[in-house]
């Protein structure tokens, strides 16, 4: 028994990249905000329908329970407020500000809104995976990377300890893997449920070709989908497609057990749902962001091996290690450096290495303004350094034109000088001061 528990512990809590989990959060929340949120045009007509049509789902009863008697019906104004609150929470969850509370509000609001829509006699499957994924993300450390929360925590810790350490994108945690693995298993169980229903209700005859001909014909004609009608006129192709669909649903869990198979199954899943849409207009596009729960396996076992690109020599940022503002700035630069183009040298602690990179560099000049050294040894300081950094860091590209506006050089130099002159500078590091 203990060995089983240890094996389960090793499986669910195996270290995984925090950045993968954060990326999954961004993909799920971003796609929800753009495409999959429950719009008020669906909610409001139902909220004003006759009360006897309302048969609340259990989840609606549970979520409404703190606000009234068991089974209370949410009113139109309340639902509108929930919608606005949920959308706001979605934006916060996307950028990673107050991430976990925002995800909790997003999960509850989204579940309540969809649950309310489905409390009038018809339930759809489309929003299920995202609804559950938001709850899972809310209880996970999805805020530990690619979030303003993470940036703020790092800036605070770095300034407090007067120490800057770059964090590689490969940083791992034992709590970063289970949410992604759980979403993978949820997908596998859902596919398995669909496959077992087909085998139970239709038997092996489900793959006879005429079954898919019938489904694509009924939906293709109803929604005027040429692909559906075409498949309906080719039973042989319909048979191949139905065998492929059932095999994919039945064996999807193999993508989890054998990570090398993740790519074929992920592509198969995307092709299945895209095909279903274009043949039958059944929109299950919520599954597309969800398949990125396999992001770790997809990266580890790519479809084809590319020769590793030659490592590009980094640009070096020389900063003042005795200046809290400079240390916080370095944390921000490291956060924005998605392409890992920067390396960092502390002016005080690493002066020998700085001098070796740019032999003629004046130490006092480096103390007065940040210096950025290109791979071929050219030093840029002050506003020039800011311009180089803006070019190197993709998230700052939108502000790049501002740095080259007419008069931006005198104004920028003046502004930079003001900030540099007013920054605090300590006389020693925390450790040195303690000594």
């Amino acid at each position: 028994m203990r060995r089983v528990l240890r094996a389960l512990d090793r499986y669910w809590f195996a270290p995984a990249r925090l950045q993968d989990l954060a990326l999954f959060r961004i993909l799920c929340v971003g796609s929800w905000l753009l495409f999959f949120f429950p719009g008020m045009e669906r909610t409001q007509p139902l909220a004003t329908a006759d009360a006897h049509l309302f048969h609340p789902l259990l989840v609606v009863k549970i979520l409404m329970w703190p606000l009234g008697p068991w089974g209370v019906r949410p009113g139109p104004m309340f639902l509108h407020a929930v919608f606005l609150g949920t959308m706001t929470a979605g934006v916060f969850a996307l950028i990673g500000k107050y991430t976990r509370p925002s995800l909790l509000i997003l999960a509850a609001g989204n579940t309540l809104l969809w649950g309310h829509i489905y409390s009038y006699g018809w339930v759809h499957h489309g929003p299920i995976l995202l609804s559950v994924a938001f709850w899972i993300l809310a209880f996970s450390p999805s805020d530990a990377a690619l979030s303003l929360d993470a940036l703020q925590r790092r800036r605070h810790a770095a300034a407090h300890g007067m120490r800057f350490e770059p964090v590689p994108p490969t940083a791992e945690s034992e709590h970063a893997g289970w949410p992604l693995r759980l979403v993978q298993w949820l997908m596998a169980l859902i596919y398995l449920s669909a496959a077992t229903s087909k085998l139970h209700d239709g038997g092996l005859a489900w793959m006879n070709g005429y079954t898919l001909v019938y489904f694509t014909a009924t939906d293709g004609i109803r929604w005027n989908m040429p692909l559906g009608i075409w498949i309906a006129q080719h039973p042989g192709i319909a048979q191949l497609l139905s065998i492929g669909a059932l095999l994919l649903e039945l064996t999807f869990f193999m993508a989890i057990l054998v990570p090398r198979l993740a790519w074929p199954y992920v592509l198969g899943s995307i092709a299945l749902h895209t095909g279903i849409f274009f043949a039958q207009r059944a929109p299950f596009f919520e599954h597309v962001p969800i398949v990125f729960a396999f992001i770790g396996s997809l990266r580890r076992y790519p479809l084809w091996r590319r020769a590793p690109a030659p490592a590009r020599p980094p640009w070096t940022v020389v900063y003042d290690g005795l200046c809290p503002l400079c240390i916080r700035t370095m944390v921000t630069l490291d956060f924005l450096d998605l392409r890992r183009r920067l390396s960092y040298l502390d002016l005080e602690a690493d002066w020998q290495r700085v001098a070796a990179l740019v032999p003629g560099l004046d130490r006092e000049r480096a103390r007065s303004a940040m210096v950025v050294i290109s791979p071929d040894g050219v030093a840029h300081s002050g506003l020039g350094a800011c311009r180089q950094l803006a070019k190197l860091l993709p998230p700052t590209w939108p502000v790049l034109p501002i740095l080259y506006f007419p008069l931006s050089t005198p104004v920028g130099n003046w502004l930079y000088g003001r900030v540099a002159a007013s920054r605090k500078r300590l006389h020693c590091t925390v450790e040195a001061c303690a000594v």
Partner: protein
Amino acid sequence: MTLQKAVAIAVIGIVLTLQGRQLWYPGEPQHDRYWPFVNWPMYSISVHAPKQFSRQSLRVLACPAGAEVAEVTHEDAHVETFVFYQMLRAATDSGPSGEAMTDTLESLVKRKWPHPACGIQLWQQTFHIGRQGLERADVPWVLVWERRPEAGASWSPEPASRKDP
């Protein structure tokens, strides 16, 4: 064990149990009660050739008589898509239940159609699936029934202030 780990184990256990139990009900109708943890029985029956199926279209005769005919969609009727199709299918039945559904559709058009109407019609297309698949996708529409108001009268839209399901 840390609190963080205990919470993770609880979430894993709840999600896998609630979704995993749906595997035990493969042949049953969709389990809506525990949404978002439901089973997936859609499109699970098997079909053999030859097979025929039909689709229906509810149309409104605009007033004055002889003006154009417009199709009533589920959005016009303010009814969920598949419920609307089920209603149309039920209305093709020549028995009492079909009559009752025809009354319901007439009532829906009277209340929801925004223009004066001089009658409603139910049309049907019947398709055939043979050994070569779908035989024709452009089969002609056939009139199933037609209803008109009393001679010279029309169904007028109700005032917008009234709220109906």
